[in-house]
């Protein structure tokens, strides 16, 4: 019953968004039924639809979890974008610098670099918040700009192949590549970039759940988020929880690098992220800051991204921006949940 209610409101929000989106399609001059059939069909087709949906979902699972962990501690980490950008460059750097290491060494090392770089980038606004009380929203946004600038400058000056016109680093060593799921799943070709990082993302959901709800550290983070004054009263150091939550959040965002650098592009590419960090906020919101919800919401958003490409190509007038409209509407309706609830109470 309780779980049903948790499910009901996000589902209503999604439904309402599709209805409103359908009206938009109609106004633009296309057939909503055809458009949605195209959207859903192309997102769920086998193997390409499902493969790409999961591939697009993977980074959103990581950023959704990152934002959710922050939320649970009462923090609004808008900096996942910067954290994953820095993490991607760090991962690539390990990948092309220690190219003589074996895969058994290099893969864990590169993954560790992804987590560490994201965590460090998040720790900076964390310290500023914990020590000086300066607001994490402002500082994480600033850190996003800094991350974009730093990665661009470093890539341009030090890590580019000579003569390369694109702002991207050298390739990482083959030993740092992680296998695509197509290698293990019959019927799924290896050209589809869904890779082991998706399994890592599912593992991260489980770990975050255990961490938040089954350990005392998670209890302390949640208590801090629920009522910092009461947490302090309960002998919990609010500053330490802020640091811990930011570091965990940043580390999770950093894991996006595993999917993008080690599983897909095999190098750092400036501007690789279509705002994964910000979409993560929407994913966390729709997923109610719960790992299970984040997983489902991320796959939903992944499916929208995949389907949007087909809507773009195969309809007369509707472009793939319809997906952005749908995403925005979902968020709007989720945020309006308080309105639904308020209407019932009074």
């Amino acid at each position, binding site marked *: 019953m309780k779980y049903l209610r948790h499910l009901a409101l996000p589902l209503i929000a999604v439904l309402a968004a599709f209805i409103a989106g359908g009206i938009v399609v109609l106004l633009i001059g296309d057939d909503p039924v055809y458009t949605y059939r195209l959207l859903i069909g192309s997102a769920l087709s086998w193997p390409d639809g499902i493969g790409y949906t999961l591939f697009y979902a993977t980074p959103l699972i990581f950023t959704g979890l990152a934002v959710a962990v922050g939320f649970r501690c009462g923090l609004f980490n808008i900096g996942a974008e910067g954290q994953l950008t820095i993490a991607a460059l760090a991962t690539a750097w390990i990948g092309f610098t220690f190219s003589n290491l074996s895969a058994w060494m290099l893969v864990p090392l590169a993954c560790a670099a992804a987590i560490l770089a994201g965590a460090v980038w998040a720790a900076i606004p964390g310290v500023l918040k914990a020590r000086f009380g300066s607001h994490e929203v402002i500082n994480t946004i600033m850190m996003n700009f800094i991350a974009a600038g730093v990665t661009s400058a470093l890539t341009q000056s030090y890590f580019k192949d000579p003569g390369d016109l694109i702002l991207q680093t050298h390739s990482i060593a083959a030993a740092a590549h992680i296998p695509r799921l197509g290698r293990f799943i019959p019927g799924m070709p290896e050209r589809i970039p869904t890779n082991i990082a998706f399994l890592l993302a599912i593992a991260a959901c489980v770990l975050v759940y255990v961490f938040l709800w089954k350990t005392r550290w998670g*209890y302390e983070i*949640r208590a801090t988020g629920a009522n910092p004054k009461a947490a302090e009263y309960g002998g919990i150091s609010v500053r330490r929880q802020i640091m811990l939550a930011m570091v965990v959040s940043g580390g999770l965002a950093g894991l996006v690098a595993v999917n993008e650098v080690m599983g897909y592009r095999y190098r750092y590419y400036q501007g690789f992220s279509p705002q994964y960090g910000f979409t993560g906020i929407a994913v966390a919101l729709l997923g109610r800051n719960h790992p299970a919800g984040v997983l489902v919401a991320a796959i939903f958003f992944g499916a929208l991204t995949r389907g949007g490409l087909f809507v773009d190509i195969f309809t007369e007038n509707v472009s793939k921006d319809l997906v952005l409209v749908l995403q925005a509407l979902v968020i709007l309706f989720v945020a309006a949940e308080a309105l639904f609830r308020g209407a019932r109470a009074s």
Partner: protein
Amino acid sequence: MLELRNISKRFGNILANDRVSITVRGGTIHAIVGENGAGKSTAMRIAYGFYTADDGDVVVDGKPHRFTTPHEAIALGIGMVHQHFMLVEPMTVAENIVLGAEPGSFAALDIAGAAGRIRALSQEFHLEIAPDAVIEDLSVGQQQRVELLKALYRNARILILDEPTAVLTPQEVGDFFRILRRMREQGKTVVIITHKLDEVLAISDEVTVMRDGRVVGRRETKETNTAELARLMVGREVLLRLEKSNAHPGAPVLQVENLSMTASDGTERLASVSFEVRAGEIVGVAGVEGNGQTELIEALAGLIESERLSGDVRFEGRNITKFTARQRKQIGIAHVPEDRHRRGLLLDSDLSENSILGVHFREPAVRPPAYVMLDEAGIRRRAQAIIRDFDVRPPNPDLAARALSGGNQQKLVIGREFELPPKLLLISQPTRGVDIGAIEFIHRKLIALRDSGCAVLLVSAELEEVTALADRLLVIYQGKIVGEVEPPRVTTDQIGLMMTGGRA
């Protein structure tokens, strides 16, 4: 004059008012009493148009109404003073009073004209408030009179006062009652919501008793007494007198020497406070709120940064001045905070999670040897033990703390701290916003804890409560201990005088 006729109001699953009918005769002071959650505030908010009734009418001067906004009630001469004042602190009395009904033409504000009327009203009702005074410079009692002025300025004939004496000292209560009588003489009608029965007897002409959203009795005040009213409120016989044996104090548990505290704005909140609490005694701290009680308890609980403090705190002879809140809990110092919502509870978490706050790092909340993984069965057992021993209702550990009534929330917090088990209990406002039945229960538990050898430091704004419970009483004024008395030997008036800086 004012009549509620068969008012019903539902909030979600809770029927807050169930066919409530109350008749207030013009020119009288009418008390509405009941425990927390009995529906008295809801009924009066409906009379004021703050809520709209689901069913039933508000009858003013014989005409039935169903208000949807307070404006409609105000237009008919109904005014309400809320428990929490609605004043803009940096603005003057006159500015606050005209807020929402600004006089003058469209753009120009006629404050001077308003000030004249305010001065006249203040004189007529002996309120002694200057229109140009700034709110934040006024005492709580004066601010309350500003709220009264606000209603009078809007030509209120019927004044509804929600728990008006909760924030006042005994002296201020006396002044306040004189003002109410003055209003009655001038033809105003006053409705006063309260749960303090002696005040009902002192001030009202008639009284309506509510319980569980229903009216359960109406009495002429002169024909009733506290015992009868208490029985009506609670629905059973209540022990009003506290049964308490003499204390048998043992060794000192808490010794405080020259404890001072400076706030971040540079003001001194505690000035060289020294006292001790022995095992098996309750030491009370009496004082008007805001005289350092909060800071004293928080300092002893380890919730104030040590840079702000000077002096020594010893626990069983050991210097604990620099101990953190967690270290203090571990050596057996329990703390029931004054504001359970702000400090004591995670309102949206369930009772289980709330039952381990502060002890979540040790058994039974976590499993050895690592003490990292939460032990859900252990936590549940602990929650159930507290629910059972402290009669927390409804007895469901999966319920959010928010869903409980104030009294049950408080029992949960107290139960959690008693389970520590404590050698020293710091307890602040143990029965604030708690109904009579629960007050009786909490008082008995406190005395039982004392008799088991625990040292108790008790702060309460209810003078009745500290004098009834404490074996020794410290009076605090402007951060200083200005006197120590033994409660049976002094009157509340004498203590009240010391609380405001006079000598006993």
